[in-house]
């Protein structure tokens, strides 16, 4: 099942995909165009942990002139950076290089502490698509990638759908693709991750508890390009969804 969270008719609704339309929890059936799409996540009673991987595809690491990491390179984002499908992301004035990153996002389903790799999928509720924009002009070598690069307002589109694990038999066998204004600029495959989903859940849960609703953004493959105001960026993962975003000026 594909879950969404939308604003419609003055309220926020949970919804599911139903024959190309949205079935709201109150029974109304509405068109995709009729709603404002929010990140497809249920609210949580404490701030959501958003873990994001850097350099988790060997080709992308090479593209950025890094050797592949020996352990996961992870940074943390605040929930305030998330926005929904079909929203706008700000390109700051005067920067030279802002790029998308199409990433498989894992949604945690139950509290995970010291989980072994073989059990890891039991702790996953589903998957969604993240676009983890970066503005490379602001990179500094202190806790890199620093939050000025990676935790900006509007710079983490997420969605459109949260897809149940039952509908994704193998998350390590999914094609990823990004288009800018309809032209394919990034194409990769989740099988090329350096640290796969079970490894990441074992690794993180070895020292921190992952809670329901927490996210792991699993990194992006080769193929990043600069994006300008007006560009329509679609990050898409096979069987998960196509996340549409448009760049705007401040």
């Amino acid at each position, binding site marked *: 099942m594909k879950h969404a969270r939308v604003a419609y008719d003055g309220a926020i609704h949970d919804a599911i995909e139903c024959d190309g339309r949205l079935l709201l929890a109150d029974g109304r059936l509405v068109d995709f165009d009729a709603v404002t799409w929010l990140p497809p996540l249920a609210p949580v009673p404490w701030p959501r942990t958003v873990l994001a991987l850097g350099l988790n595809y060997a080709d992308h690491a090479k593209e950025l002139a890094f050797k592949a990491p020996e352990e996961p390179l992870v940074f943390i984002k605040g929930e*305030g950076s998330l926005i929904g499908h079909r929203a706008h992301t700000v390109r700051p004035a005067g920067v030279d290089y802002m790029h998308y990153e199409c990433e498989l996002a894992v949604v945690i389903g139950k509290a995970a502490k010291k989980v072994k790799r073989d059990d890891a999928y039991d702790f996953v509720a589903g998957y969604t698509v993240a676009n983890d924009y970066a503005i490379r002009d602001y990179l500094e070598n202190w806790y890199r990638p620093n939050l000025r690069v990676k935790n900006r307002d509007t710079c983490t589109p997420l969605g459109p759908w949260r897809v149940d694990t039952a509908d994704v038999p193998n998350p390590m066998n999914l094609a990823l693709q990004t288009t800018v204004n309809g032209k394919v600029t990034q194409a990769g495959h989740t099988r090329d991750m350096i640290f796969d989903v079970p490894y990441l859940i074992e690794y993180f849960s070895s020292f921190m508890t992952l809670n329901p609703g927490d996210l792991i953004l699993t990194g992006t493959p080769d193929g990043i390009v600069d994006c300008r105001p007006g560009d329509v960026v679609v990050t898409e993962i096979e069987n998960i969804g196509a996340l549409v975003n448009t760049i705007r000026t401040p």
Partner: protein
Amino acid sequence: MNRRPVLAAGTVYGVLLNSKDEWVAWAGQMGEAPYKAAPKAPVLYVKTANTWSACGAAIAVPARAPQVEIGASLALVIGTPTHQVSPQSALQHVAGYVLVNDLSLPHTSYYRPPVKYKNLDGFLGIGPRCATPTEVGDPNRLRLEVRIDGHLQQTVDLGQMLRPAAQLIADVSAFMTLRHGDVLLLGLGAHRPLAHAGQRIEICAAGLDALGVLTNTLVEETP
């Protein structure tokens, strides 16, 4: 673990290298690899919700790390959103102040984000009380005292922060909005004391009862 200490349900951001003594301690390395330059924007990190420990809670120290760093700081709890605010107006967005103990496993490199050192379960002790802006006045006048088993181990002068509270909020708000309930930690002193399982940590602000005394006991992690 009590998930409902006095903070509201926002994201907690810490800041590296904000105190003058920490900056001075690192200044000699700032031009060297891998840093290659002194940081320009505030260097932030996140203390995720799994790290939150209420005042009085026991905090588990992992067996792999015999000692932990004690990080006394003052939390600025945001009341109204800060989007590109000026230093002159920044403190108007603060709803209150809380003492914190930002625990870390000792680490010698600041190049990569410190998740495995700073985001262990329980690694943020949160004070017993959210003091109002009126009670606190100028937050930069405070001196935090760290006691381990009753002995004074460190005094952190918040007046020596390179970015005082208002400037820090303004500089962070230039690139990300702090929302209602989000929290910004003002920074840590250098030469942070180390402690081990079995010890009792107390943090207070000298001469200001309104913040209370943050107390946590370190215990060995159960396997």
